[in-house]
C-alpha cells in the first residue's frame, strides 16, 4: 500500500469510528461542544502518531507474549505527557475533558492501530497511518460536537449562531442534544449517512 493511500484511507473510507467501530466512548462523551471536541481530536491524533512511531521503531525487539503490556505502557506514557501539557497550558479545557483524557489509554483506536499496523510496518507508514486515523476520528468528533452545540445550545465555539428572529418565531434549543441520548442518536444518523454514501454494509 502506498504512503498516500495509508494516510487518506482512514479519513473517510475506512474511518476508525464509523467503519472500524473503534473509540466510540470518547467520541460521544466529550462532544457536547465544539471546542473540547477539537482539543480531544488533536490530543488523540498526537498520541496515536507518537505511539505508532515508537512501537514501529522497537517492533523487532518486542516479545510476542508481552506485547500488549509493552504497548499499554507506551500509550499510558504518551497520555500522561499530553495530560500534563493540557493542564499546564489549557486548564479550563482540561477540566472540561476531566477523566476522558486519561481514558485515551483504553481508547481502542490507539491499541487497534498499534496491533494492526505499527507492529508489522516501518516507522514512516506507521506514523502516517496514525495521523490519518487520528484525523478520521477528529472529523467525526468535530461533526458530532458542532451538531450537538448548534442544536442543543444554539452556539458554535461559544458564539451564538441561531438568529434571534428564529427564537422570536418560536424556535427553541433542543435540550436533549446536550444529554446522552442526543449523542447516541446523532452518531447513529451520521453512521447511516456515511454508510449510504460509501456503500459499506454490515450483515447481521
Amino acid at each position, binding site marked *: 500500500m502506498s504512503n498516500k493511500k495509508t494516510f487518506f484511507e482512514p479519513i473517510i473510507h475506512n474511518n476508525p469510528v464509523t467503519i472500524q467501530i473503534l473509540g466510540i466512548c470518547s467520541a460521544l462523551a466529550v462532544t457536547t461542544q465544539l471546542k473540547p471536541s477539537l482539543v480531544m481530536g488533536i490530543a488523540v491524533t498526537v498520541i496515536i502518531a507518537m505511539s505508532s512511531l515508537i512501537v514501529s521503531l522497537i517492533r523487532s525487539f518486542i516479545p510476542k507474549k508481552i506485547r500488549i503490556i509493552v504497548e499499554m505502557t507506551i500509550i499510558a506514557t504518551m*497520555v500522561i505527557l499530553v495530560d500534563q501539557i493540557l493542564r499546564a497550558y489549557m486548564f479550563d479545557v482540561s477540566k472540561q475533558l476531566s477523566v476522558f483524557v*486519561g481514558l485515551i*489509554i483504553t481508547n481502542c483506536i490507539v491499541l487497534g492501530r498499534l496491533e494492526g499496523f505499527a507492529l508489522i510496518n516501518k516507522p514512516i507508514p506507521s506514523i502516517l497511518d496514525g495521523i490519518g486515523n487520528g484525523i478520521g476520528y477528529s472529523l467525526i468528533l468535530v461533526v458530532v460536537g458542532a451538531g450537538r452545540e448548534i442544536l442543543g445550545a444554539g452556539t458554535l465555539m461559544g458564539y451564538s449562531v441561531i438568529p434571534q428572529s428564529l427564537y422570536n418565531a418560536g424556535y427553541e434549543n433542543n435540550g436533549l442534544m446536550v444529554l446522552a441520548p442526543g449523542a447516541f*442518536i446523532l452518531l*447513529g444518523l451520521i453512521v447511516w449517512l456515511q454508510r449510504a454514501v460509501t456503500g459499506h454494509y454490515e450483515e447481521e
Partner: protein
Amino acid sequence: MLEMLSLGIKSVFVENILLAYFLGMCSFLAVSKKVTTAIGLGFAVVFVMAITTPVNWLAHEYLLKAGALSWLGSQFSEVDLSYLNYIAFIAVIAAMVQIAEMAIEKISMKLYTALGIFLPLITVNCAILGVSLFMIERKYTLGQSTVFGVSSGIGWMLAIIAMAAIREKLKYSNVPKPLRGLGITMLLTGLIAMAFMTFSGINI
C-alpha cells in the same frame, strides 16, 4: 447506610456508566449479539470492577496522591506521584484480570470456558478504568468506592443484557441496509438512554 444505598441506586439507574457517561461502548457494541454471552461478560465486568476499584483506591490513597507516602517517614511527605495514576491503575487492572482469570480457571472450569476470550479483553474496557478515575475525581471514601464500583458494574450488565435481547429480536425485522449493525444499534442505545433518563427524578 441509606447514603450507600442511594449511591448504589444512582449509579445503576440514574447515572448509568454506559448510558450517561458512554463508557465501555466498544465491548458493548461487539458482544451484544447474544443474551448468553452478554450475561457472561456482564458478570465478569461486575467481578473485576468490584475488585479493582477498592484496590486502586488503596493504591491512590497510600502510594500515589500528594503526601500519600508520609507513612514512610517525614522526608517523603512532600512527594506527589499522582501523575503516575494512569499507569498504576492500568497495571492494577491488568494484574487483577489476570488473577481473576486464573482463579476462575481453578474454581469453575465451566464458567471459564463460557467467558472465553472476553475475560482478558476486560482489561481494555474503558468502563473499568473510568470508574477508578471518577472515584478519584469525586473524592469517594473506600466504602463509597466499593459500592460505586459494584453498582456501576451492575448498571453496565443491565444495559448490555437489554441491548442483546433487543438485537436478538431485531434479526427478524427489515432494517435499511446502510443502517444495519452499528447505525441501528446506536439509535437503539439512544432510545434506551432516553428511557433511563426517566429515573433521574428519583431521590432517596
